[in-house]
């Protein structure tokens, strides 16, 4: 057997194995380092701070856990959220994330490393991303081999599709969930392969952890049964499947019911019924197999098959019957909207109003996954070619997750791991083929020519690629090491194939392909770093813009306003805002809020929407009834910050309309031509709405008599701005992004505030003419 490039001789298999495992350990350590380091852009560029909206609640809950202990956290009733109602936090939260950082916090303190809980929260996601890389390595190792595992780990370490949800400071459930997802899947594959109840139990325990951490656990609950079902349908039932699935299901289901937020759902909702059905089916199939092993009569077997069929039909009918009867709850809106993509927009505007719940555009796939997106189908095809039991899992996962990621931007996160795994399988097969030094057997005259020309570039290959080195070290022709066997087994090169010899000849053909692959990998690294630093590392709490000279200008209006609230208002002052800012107000301003990002009570949100979208006279009683002291709006018209409340206003109208269709109608907020405008052509209802008035109050004055332009809507506003009778401007931040209004108390003389105001104004105008119409800022 000739080789394309010289290989070191005289190495013992033990040396080769030891070197390979050392290289693997070093590679995994470097991958973890890269995964952590690439997530720190936001911390280094800005500061160590919690980002976005949801993480602020998780952070607040973790602070309670760290300061008061687990038991207090478990029974925590938060009276400041959803102001008149309050929120039972312990029963409405997935506690896995908080518990994890609480444990880390306590361990660090036990080791005399007094780290602030905020830093534990900020750096939790990067830390767990390193664990995700390791779990992906283990998972891919089961699919192919260690080298594919390393590639997959390297991919998921830096791929932007996962970084986007796990940068430092993004303290969200997904931060630990993807690690748990991959590790649960790894344990499941291991349980299926070995037929071991131990791995089934470990999978169940990690499944429990996943249930405690993220609502996306439903994906696992349906993925594993689907895999088992497909295996059974393909006639691949084995006792290993029975052992693995049953030990996972019984322990996992009982364990998942311990989480208060999940409760009895695993036995009563449609999302979990697939797992139960497959569990029942497995019992029947296993029993049939048992009987079949004792009797070999074909007639009896067919009779049993009929029995199986009947039981299956009866079982399905029972499920359908129970669902129709209502014993089993139907799909919740959130899940149902994944199947019927128009459902949310029609019936649950609050789900459709979240930008992450929109369908994904093509460029997003490329931006998040770069060249993995076109290696991904190739990897799935390679799984089809081999089609062991565990390859089916990757195929099903790929098909399902691709669909979900296409329906919802947010679910790109669930797709990313399988993309990394499948691409790693494809790329590693390619590299196996082209680094494999064995030349195909051909007629004698060609062999010396190829080996002669290839001696010098061989050095180039061995230095450029670590994998090349490993393969070279592993391939001394006489010694049959595990790796050579492996290469021989996995390489699709047909050695000694009949007459027209197929295969790769010489070093140049190898070099072209390998160098091309390497350059793709390099570009991948550059792309990932670029996307991470530019797109996904901005903490949305502070807004950054660049000055003319390239220096960074930071707009910190949010914290300015929240800290004003924190320091200048009584601790019991209730703040009303749109639900997006609920968690941030509670986290940073530490004031009770009416609604927040946990949108569990749609009517309450609609109340806020109604108050915001109706006129002052209508809104004022609502505000007074809810003890609202301050109203907070986000206004981006001065700075061109497009995510402001005027742009979200139509959703408030829609959500309010869903509850009070008689009082709020969306068409009233459009011009007769059907345009959504804020300038002097805006509709009367729009101009009178509380949101419009609060946003544009005194805005025209800012331009000193010139035309007032709204930079977001690009519209010129009327010279005379709206007036407010029931609210006082309390605070407006530096760039006018956050505006806080104080709700006036009732007039002491019992007049309604509008006439009281008019009276006051009229008097003023009579007494001193030059005095401008200006209201004192409280």
């Amino acid at each position, binding site marked *: 057997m000739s080789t394309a490039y010289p290989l070191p001789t005289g190495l013992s298999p033990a040396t080769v194995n030891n070197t390979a495992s050392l290289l693997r350990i070093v590679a995994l350590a470097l991958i973890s380092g890269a995964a952590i380091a690439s997530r720190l852009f936001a911390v280094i560029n800005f500061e160590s701070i919690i980002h976005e909206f949801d993480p602020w609640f998780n952070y607040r809950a973790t602070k309670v856990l760290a300061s008061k202990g687990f038991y207090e956290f478990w029974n925590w009733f938060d009276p400041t959220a959803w102001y008149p109602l309050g929120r039972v936090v312990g029963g409405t939260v997935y506690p896995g994330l908080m518990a994890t950082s609480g444990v880390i916090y306590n361990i660090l303190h036990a080791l005399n490393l007094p780290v602030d809980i905020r830093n534990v929260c900020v750096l939790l996601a990067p830390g767990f991303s390193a664990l995700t890389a390791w779990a992906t390595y283990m998972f891919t190792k089961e699919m192919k081999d260690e080298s594919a595992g390393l590639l997959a780990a390297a991919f998921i370490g830096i791929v932007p599709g996962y970084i986007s949800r796990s940068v430092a400071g993004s303290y969200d459930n997904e931060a630990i969930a993807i690690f748990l997802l991959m590790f649960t899947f790894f344990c499941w594959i291991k349980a299926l392969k070995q*037929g071991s109840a131990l791995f089934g139990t470990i999978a169940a325990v990690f499944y429990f952890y996943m249930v405690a951490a993220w609502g996306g656990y439903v994906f696992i609950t349906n993925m594993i049964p689907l895999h088992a079902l497909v295996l059974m349908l393909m006639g691949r039932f*084995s006792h290993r499947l029975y052992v693995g699935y049953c030990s996972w299901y019984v322990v996992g289901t*009982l364990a998942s019911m*311990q989480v208060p937020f999940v409760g009895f759902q695993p036995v009563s909702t449609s999302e979990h019924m697939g797992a139960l059905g497959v569990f029942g089916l497995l019992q029947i199939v296993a029993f049939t197999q048992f009987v079949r092993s*004792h009797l070999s009569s074909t007639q009896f077997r067919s009779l049993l098959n009929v029995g199986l069929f009947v039981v299956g039909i009866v079982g399905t009918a029972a499920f359908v019957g129970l669902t129709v009867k209502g014993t089993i709850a139907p799909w919740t809106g959130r899940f149902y909207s994944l199947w019927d993509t128009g459902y949310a927009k029609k019936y649950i505007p609050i789900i459709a109003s979240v930008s992450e719940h929109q369908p994904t555009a093509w460029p997003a796939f490329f931006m998040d996954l770069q060249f993995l997106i076109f290696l991904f189908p190739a990897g799935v095809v390679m799984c089809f070619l081999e089609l062991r039991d565990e390859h089916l899992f990757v195929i099903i996962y790929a098909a399902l997750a691709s669909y979900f990621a296409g329906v919802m931007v947010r679910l790109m996160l669930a797709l990313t791991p399988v993309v990394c795994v499948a691409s790693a399988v494809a790329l590693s097969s390619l590299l196996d083929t082209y680094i494999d030094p064995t030349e195909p057997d051909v007629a004698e005259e060609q062999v010396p020519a190829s080996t002669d020309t290839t001696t010098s570039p061989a050095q180039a290959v061995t230095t450029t690629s670590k994998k090349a080195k490993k393969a070279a070290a592993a391939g001394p022709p006489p010694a049959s090491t595990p790796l050579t066997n492996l290469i021989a087994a996995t390489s699709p090169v047909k050695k000694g194939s009949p007459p027209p010899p197929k295969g790769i000849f010489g070093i140049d053909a190898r070099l072209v392909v390998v160098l091309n692959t390497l350059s793709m990998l390099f570009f991948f690294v550059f792309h990932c770093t670029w996307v991470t630093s530019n797109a996904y590392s901005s903490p949305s709490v502070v807004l950054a813009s660049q000055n003319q000279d390239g220096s960074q200008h930071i707009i910190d209006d949010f914290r300015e306003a929240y800290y004003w609230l924190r320091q200048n208002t009584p601790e019991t002052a209730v703040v009303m805002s749109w639900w997006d800012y609920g968690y941030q107000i509670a986290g940073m301003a530490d004031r009770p809020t009416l609604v927040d990002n946990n949108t569990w009570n749609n009517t309450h949100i609609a109340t806020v929407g109604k108050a915001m979208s109706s006129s002052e006279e209508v809104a004022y009683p609502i505000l007074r009834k809810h003890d609202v002291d301050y109203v907070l709006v986000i206004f981006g018209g001065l700075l061109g910050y497009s995510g402001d409340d005027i742009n979200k206003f139509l959703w408030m109208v829609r959500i309010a309309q869903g509850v009070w269709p008689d009082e709020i109608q969306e068409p009233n907020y459009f011009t007769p031509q059907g345009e959504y405008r804020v300038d002097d052509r805006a509709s009367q209802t729009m101009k009178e709405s509380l949101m419009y008035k609060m946003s544009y109050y005194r805005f025209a004055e800012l331009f000193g008599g010139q035309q007032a332009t709204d930079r977001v809507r690009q519209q010129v506003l009327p010279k005379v701005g709206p007036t407010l009778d029931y609210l006082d401007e309390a605070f407006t931040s530096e760039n006018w992004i956050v505006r806080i209004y104080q709700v006036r108390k009732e007039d002491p003389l019992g007049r309604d505030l509008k006439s009281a105001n008019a009276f006051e104004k009229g008097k003023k105008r009579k007494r001193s003419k030059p005095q401008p119409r200006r209201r004192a800022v409280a």
Partner: protein
Amino acid sequence: MAPKPTSPPATAVNPLQTLWKVYNDNTPHRLKFIDAFLFFLMLSGIIQFAYCILVSNYPYNAFLSGFSSTVGQFVLVASLRSQVNPQNKDEFKDVSPERAFADFAIGSIVLHFFVYNFLG
């Protein structure tokens, strides 16, 4: 969960008898012992379920934990049975009977930890 000693088709009386005979003749004592335990677990599960249907499911978590303890124990024992069954030796290459018993013990301990935690 299909009942163990009775088979769905009621018409085939003769095959049932042969099945019973073949089972009695060919099954090692160890497996018969396991099967006795399986039978007991099944009876316990049936009684609990019947009680739940006939009387009340009021402390629903108590019913669920009791019932899933029997169901879980049943499938874990059934797993153990298939792992130690000499007929399945080639299927479970990585799992020796001793390892299978250890797996079973660990699985049961974890299961019953959750059962007691859920009992309320």
